[in-house]
């Protein structure tokens, strides 16, 4: 367990970070966060976790070992509250070495200026606090919605593909990009590795992601004549990818996606779901009616191109740097799903 270093004295991407992890997880009420906390707590190389969110601790985490797990309710958009978390007695002598930022008001329902403030301020305060307190790794879980979608799309979208900077886009997309840019502006900061992960749509019971909400709709509504290619990931795979990001050296922007690529209709078919096809121009109207009737939580207006044009993330870079080094992470080497191929 030693840090490998390149000629510049910087750790080699994909090498194991030394010592035990002390992780700050923002946005702990998210389903993916709960899953990753459970997995991290099963790992002896994780010394302590501070999970933070607004509201109460998720029931699934109530029985966790209090020696290693602390839940705190705080408003991360307030700078003072963020600082206070980093100065908790418990973590003052042995500070955090990793911050995982997943606190994002990403639901288009009831989105307002407060949500915008929360998204942008949280990203700013959390990153600044992490840098001030010498945190070695900062990971922001972004979204694949940041990419520009259209008929001119590439068959695989790489990290350097065109971003959706359309000013008429949904404000949540702008918030996501703002938060990413805040991270990217500090990416060359010495002593801290800042990572932005852009996951493809995430499947999993109760996960609030576009594709999951679409699949949980009754029935999912799709535009007639379109069948985009997608490569969604799962809650479990995303958790593994985040664990790799926590345990291994590396910084920069990375796509993370599922292994299977295929037309959206095939993924539905595989799960025995029969979608309803409606004319494209009427899709939003039908979606609104479905939402009013409680038949879906999917919001067709959030990322309208999503159901028309392919979005297949190319995660070769993450594969090369992180997944190929999965065997170095004990937590993954030991579990039944083993190192990733």
């Amino acid at each position, binding site marked *: 367990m030693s840090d490998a270093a390149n000629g510049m004295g910087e750790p080699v991407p994909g090498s194991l970070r030394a010592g035990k992890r002390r992780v700050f997880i923002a946005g702990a009420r998210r389903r993916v966060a709960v899953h990753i906390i459970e997995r991290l707590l099963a790992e002896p190389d994780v010394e302590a976790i501070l999970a933070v969110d607004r509201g109460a601790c998720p029931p699934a985490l109530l029985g966790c070992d209090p020696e290693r797990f602390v839940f705190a309710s705080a408003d991360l958009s307030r700078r003072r509250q963020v600082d206070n978390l980093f100065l908790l007695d418990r973590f003052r002598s042995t500070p955090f070495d990793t911050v995982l930022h997943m606190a994002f008001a990403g639901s288009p329902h009831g989105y307002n200026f407060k949500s915008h403030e929360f998204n942008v301020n949280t990203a700013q305060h959390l990153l600044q606090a992490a840098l001030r307190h010498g945190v070695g790794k900062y990971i922001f879980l972004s979204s694949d919605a940041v990419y520009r979608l*259209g*008929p*001119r*799309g*590439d*068959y*695989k979208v*790489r990290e350097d*593909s065109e971003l959706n900077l359309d000013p008429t886009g949904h404000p949540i997309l702008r918030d996501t990009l703002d938060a990413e840019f805040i991270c990217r502006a500090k990416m060359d900061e010495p002593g801290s590795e800042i990572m932005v992960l852009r996951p493809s749509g995430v499947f999993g019971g109760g996960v609030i992601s576009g594709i999951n909400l679409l699949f949980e709709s009754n029935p999912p509504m799709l*535009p*007639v*004549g*379109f*069948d985009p*290619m997608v490569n969604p990931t799962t809650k479990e795979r995303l958790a593994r990818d985040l664990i790799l990001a926590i345990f291994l050296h590396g910084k920069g922007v990375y796509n993370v996606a599922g*292994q*299977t*690529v*295929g*037309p959206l*209709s*095939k*993924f539905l078919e*595989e799960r025995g779901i029969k979608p309803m096809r409606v004319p*494209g121009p009427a899709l939003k109207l039908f979606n609104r009616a479905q939402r009013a009737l409680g038949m879906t939580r999917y919001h067709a207006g959030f990322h309208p191109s999503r159901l028309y*044009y*392919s979005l*297949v993330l190319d995660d070769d870079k993450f594969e090369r740097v992180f997944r190929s080094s999965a065997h170095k992470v004990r937590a993954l080497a030991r579990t039944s799903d083993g190192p990733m191929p």
Partner: protein
Amino acid sequence: MLRPNMKFVRALLPDREWDRVEAYSIRDVGMGTDAFGTRPQVLGVAYALGYWLHRYYFRVVSQGHENLPASGPGVVVGNHSGVLPFDAILMSADVFRNTEPPRLVRYMVDYFVYKVPFLGTFFRSVGQISGTRANFDGLIREGHLVGIFPEGAAALGKLAVDKYDLLPFSHGHVELAARHGAPVIPFGLVGAEEQQTMVADIKPLARAFRMPYFPVTTTFPWLGPLGLLPRPVRYYIRYGEPLTIDPDVLKSIEVREREVARVREAVAEQIRLGHQHRKDSEEGRV
């Protein structure tokens, strides 16, 4: 979404052609398609249609298949004409029929196709993807034959008086071929110019409908959509020897222009030879 009835498709093709469809394999990425979205079943339907047009409607005569690489990447470059792109369909069907194992030419397609319901999905399902650099790179990396019409879609709307005059070639194909060290195979296609007689291009209407041209032919719009049906003229396709592009096209604009001119001349030469072949055939010398 597109669920072809394979029994019906099977009935449309003779056994040896069906075997070709079955011999064409894709690299499945999990859901029965390749990374570009190609679906063998839909490809079978497209080939059944292409075969019928190739064999019976346009009665294609082609030469020079030995110049097409049996494996590995290549950029197939030729002339474009005929109001509707039947030339692309026939060239693709011709390559598929005459290569062993069968090879699929994947064109760099104009973006507007993917905005049209069903059409975009169909094009993607038969392995035709939008013309971006990343898509070209991906196809070449995976060892595919990429089809490019460097005159662009505007060449389809050439007037009858300009037939077989090549428009200026865009430079992208030589640059991309040089970047990957892929050979450029020039081809000339004779016959497509005669399938329609384009007498005028109404540019204001083309702009209004966001089309590269709005054709007025001897039959369209007078006979409605039926007027767009091509005449059953015989096609003559010739593939020239592969050209190796000078890697210096990536460094110098002069070299790039010279290489583009070389490809254009090679295409023009194949058209000239195609004309000669047609003349000889019509006069009973072959």
